[in-house]
């Protein structure tokens, strides 16, 4: 209950992390897509 009661505080704390998580997510997605494309290219050959 205490955690829920202070959710606003903790959410605001987590908000500081959001830009980094967003950037890391995009980097991971980019790597995953590059890997998938290279696999597709190999399969086509």
């Amino acid at each position, binding site marked *: 209950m205490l955690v829920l009661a202070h959710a606003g505080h903790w959410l605001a*704390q987590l*908000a500081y992390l959001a830009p980094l998580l967003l*950037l890391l997510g995009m980097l991971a997605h980019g790597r995953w897509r590059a890997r998938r494309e290279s696999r597709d290219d190999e399969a086509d050959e």
Partner: protein
Amino acid sequence: MTRRTALAVVAFAAAFLLVPSTAVAHGLVGKQDLPIPRWLFAWAAAIVLVVSFVALALLWPSPRWQRTPERPLVRLPRLVDPLCGALGVAIFVLAVYAGLAGNPSANENLLPTLVFVIFWVGLPILSFLFGDVFRALNPWRAIGRLSGWLVARVGRAAPPEPLPYPRRLGYWPAAIGIVAFVWVELIYSGRTDPSKLALLALAYAVVQLVGMSIYGVDAWSRRADAFGVYFGLFARLSPLRWTRRALHGRRPFSAAAEFEVLPGAAALICFAIGTTSFDGFSLHALWTLIAHSLQDAFRGLGLTPGTALQWAFTIGLLGVVGLVYGFYRLGIEGVRTIAPDRSAGELAGAFAHTLIPIALAYVIAHYFGLLAYQGQAIAYLASDPLGDGTDLFGTANAAIDYTWISATAVWYVQVATLVTGHAIALALAHDRALALYGATQAAVRSQYWMLAIMVGFTCLALWLLSEQG
């Protein structure tokens, strides 16, 4: 990351900026009169960095900061260097004497404020503005050089050549020295006792003199003297460089790229960032919870509450320093995925200098309030260094003016400093990547991870500042 993706990141983040601030921010805005929640500043800073990154990729196609041409501005008389050294020795002797013989109260004695505010916080800023002023004033370097000069003059035979400084030691003595100093500043139970501080200062001076006598004054002070190395880092960002006989002008920031890469180079700067981070983190409610748990655990081992708390803080300091270094090395591993032909250690050293403006930004942002307010105490402490009622300059009754700058203005200075520092770090990293990889596309791709490091450090700094007011 394609250009479309990069634009999407900017648009996504900008869209979130338009979301009105809500009640979740109530606890954060109270201390300062800010129009938006503080966490939004972190988002805005991240956007500025992403935009800077895109601008660098588009507008900075070849390395420009790998060399720093400089031109002499003023020739200096031969006496300036020894006079500065003598001044440094005089200040050191006065400070140590004040610590040993003066008022035992930390607020009445010159030494604690001189060491923890003027020296530790003021000198990095002075080094950035005016070049390596500490090198000129460094008391143990002056004593070491004077000793060498006397031995050469008085001795019948030529003094023995110093041993070559072991390369494997690199910057590690300086890096460990920085952590040790911050341990004394934040954790050591005797940190408010001027006499204990004076004894520690004397012990440090003895270690420096021994090191200089073995490995030579310059080699030791440039690589192993924690303060010489630390302030020297920030002097690399300065538009001024001092030599014994001249003052030189140069492009600001780019001399950081000439930072000598030795073992411990990246650790040194990460330790500087990590120690400042712990100082901020130690004010957080989260740390209070962790510290109490650790203290209870140590008390369970039979330690007194005070000692247990010191151990808890020591673990916290080492943990945060380790986390910052680990975060940087993780980012370097990311860079390595783009160019696996280079080792992680090589890349960590090659990009270490890009952290120097971040370390400076952390110092200014975290300690700006301390310098702005507590720094004023030097006016009355200098007039009454021993705290015994003396009034050398007629300022012994001066008081600290807490109204000259508002808490809100301090916050904006902190945010602006952090964003500027990280943007310069991005530029340094981009320039080094161009020099390493040649092709712009490969350089930019390698820097996606450095961008993540910069955004991470910016958000961390703003989060750490969020509990201060």
